[in-house]
């Protein structure tokens, strides 16, 4: 126990102004970005516009993941569960009961939040930590996948095709494939998710969640009901990722158990945040911007492979290889992610 060498001289900060909080800056940045992005689908060629929609879906999934795993510190390896619940809830309501996808999105959010709270309760009740927690979340997503694959209730491995409508409709969330409306809807959803996450972080609940992440016992000792706020965070996180799943179905018009609950979906929720910066507001968005186009680049490459690699024509897998490589490099070289590193270098913290 060494004492501080600094003399205990001027010990007061009275009169020094309190530091400014970042929240308003974040909200302004979100608003500016949203306005700037509105004309994007009118400028981009259709192929690029669909990449932009994919970027937004990635961002939305990962904003959800980041809330629980980044800000909440509960590393989820099974966000496919919530993405899939969102996708299946909306598809099931639409195909089997002719319910509007808008209501389907809400239903998906509610079911996903409830499921997350249930898993969270069990995991926290039985004090699962670290590897055990990650494996438990993974197991629940896999269980849903297996159940969906073998249940007549949701059409087994076949999944659902969204029936095509004769004309475009906002109520049924269906437009011409090249319509900019898809981008605008995805943009609106992503912006809402970002705003919600900033407001949440600013709120009492968000502050308590971060405290509980840093030190659960210390948080409890100052009077924070840790379990309640962790569950709340998980539920919110699941609901946001469920929105991505529900929108995915309406955009791609198709869902099956692997696309919904497969472990690669969980990875797609993790990757943008890791690339951009875990536990930062902007990390998932920046990561998604990096990831989205890669998909397109590799697809083009496999359609016209370079000389010497012709045998790869029509094959798949290259995109995921690139993701995997990126993941390893980022974790080893930039563990705070792109935005996290920049923020650390350029700003004080």
């Amino acid at each position, binding site marked *: *126990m060494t004492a501080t060498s600094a003399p205990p001289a001027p010990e007061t900060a009275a009169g020094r102004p309190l530091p400014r909080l970042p929240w308003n800056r974040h909200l302004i940045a979100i608003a500016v970005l949203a306005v700037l992005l509105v004309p994007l689908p009118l400028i981009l060629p259709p192929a690029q516009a669909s990449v932009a929609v994919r970027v937004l879906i990635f961002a939305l999934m990962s904003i959800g993941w980041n809330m629980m795993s980044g800000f909440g510190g509960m*590393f989820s*390896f099974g966000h496919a569960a919530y993405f899939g619940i969102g996708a299946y809830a909306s598809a099931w309501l639409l195909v089997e009961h002719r319910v509007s996808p808008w209501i389907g999105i809400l239903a998906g959010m509610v079911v996903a939040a409830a499921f997350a709270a249930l898993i969270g309760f*069990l995991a926290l*009740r*039985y*004090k*699962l*930590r*670290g*590897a*055990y927690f*990650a*494996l*438990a979340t*993974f*197991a*629940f997503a*896999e*269980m849903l996948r*297996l*159940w969906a*694959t*073998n249940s007549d209730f949701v059409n087994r491995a076949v999944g659902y095709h969204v029936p095509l409508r004769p004309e475009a409709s906002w109520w049924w969330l269906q437009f011409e494939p090249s319509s900019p409306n898809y981008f605008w809807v995805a943009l609106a959803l992503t912006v809402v998710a970002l705003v919600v996450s900033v407001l949440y972080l600013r709120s009492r609940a968000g502050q308590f969640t971060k405290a509980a992440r840093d030190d*659960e*016992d210390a948080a409890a000792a100052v009077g924070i009901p840790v379990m309640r706020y962790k569950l709340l965070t998980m539920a919110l996180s699941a609901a946001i990722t469920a929105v991505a799943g529900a929108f995915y179905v309406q955009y791609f018009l198709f869902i099956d158990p692997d696309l919904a609950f497969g*472990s*690669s979906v969980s*990875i797609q929720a*993790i990757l943008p945040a*890791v690339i951009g910066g875990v536990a930062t507001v902007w990390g998932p968005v920046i990561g998604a911007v990096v990831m989205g186009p890669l998909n397109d680049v590799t697809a083009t490459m496999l359609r016209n492979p370079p000389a010497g690699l012709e045998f*790869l024509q029509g*094959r*798949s*897998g*290259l995109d*995921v*290889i690139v*993701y*995997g*490589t*990126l*993941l*390893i490099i980022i*974790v*080893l070289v930039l*563990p705070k992610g792109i935005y996290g590193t920049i923020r650390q270098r350029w700003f004080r913290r």
Partner: protein
Amino acid sequence: MTSPADQGHVAAAGDVATLDPDEARAPAGRAVPWRRIAVITALIVVAVVLAYVRSGSGVVVVQAVATGVLIGGVYGLIAMGLTLIFGVLDIVNFAHGSFLALALFLTFGLAQAGLHPYLALAVSVPAMFLLGVLVQRGILAGAMGKPLENQLLITLGISLIIENALLLFFGANPRSVPLPGDRGVPIFEAVANLSRILAFVGALLLAGLLYLLLQRTRLGTAIRAVAANDTGAQLVGIDTRVIYAVTFALGTACAGAAGTLVAPLVTIEPTTGALFNIVAFVVVVLGGMGNVVGALVGGLVIGLAEQLGGIYLPGQSPLLSVFIVFVLVLFLRPQGLFGRSA
């Protein structure tokens, strides 16, 4: 003034490793836990009886038990590798199944070239060992001691790369490796393929070899020392970096051997490894993370659970019952059947 133990850290009191009073009284791994073995055996007997009640057919149950035990031995071998890596390097290796998949394709390629599938062991085991060394030294060493999530993500990245490289080069169409002279062998009223029986025997032999290596050789002693306390091991002159690399490689070699052994039993696809990976995780948790003998027993239990689950939940994937067992174990006995120890 302050004692070295972090006593403010009350969470440690609820830590999974110290939960069990039995473990505290009898330090892990010394005495044979007869009582627990008896309980597990009793549970298995009950499960078998219930399966009989449910199906009403003796043949079905005997068949399930035979198939379950046989494949369970292979699960055990795979899980031994995984649990060894966890016990020594503290890494949850998500890439374990993809090493198995690599060995499957390697075996396929060698069989295509005319080699007997089991002779492929002579290639797949050293190849996976070598790859294990390279991966550990080249990639994972840079993340030793970092938060668990980092290592999880890195091994996940490795598995994505391997699995999709296989997909890229071999395509998604399923392949198979027929075993020359394979036939059905009657076991009581049931029938098991010779390839399945040989895989079981081979897996048990290799598991036994691994056990001997860990218990009887200098290398094994060093590995166990590092697992118990790596700073301590370093102080007595063990080069932990070498041990980490060798242990990881031993683990991947187990996956490689298992890959060759099961090649005649499974459809060979890039995703086949992922299935084994999932099962291996379940087995590892069941056996107690880091507990090598536990993994072997856990493998048999999970093999049985998978097959009997098919009887309880007809129409559902057998994997579903594996996961149900998994979740129950995670919540009710997170330290596994035999607690954690190497």
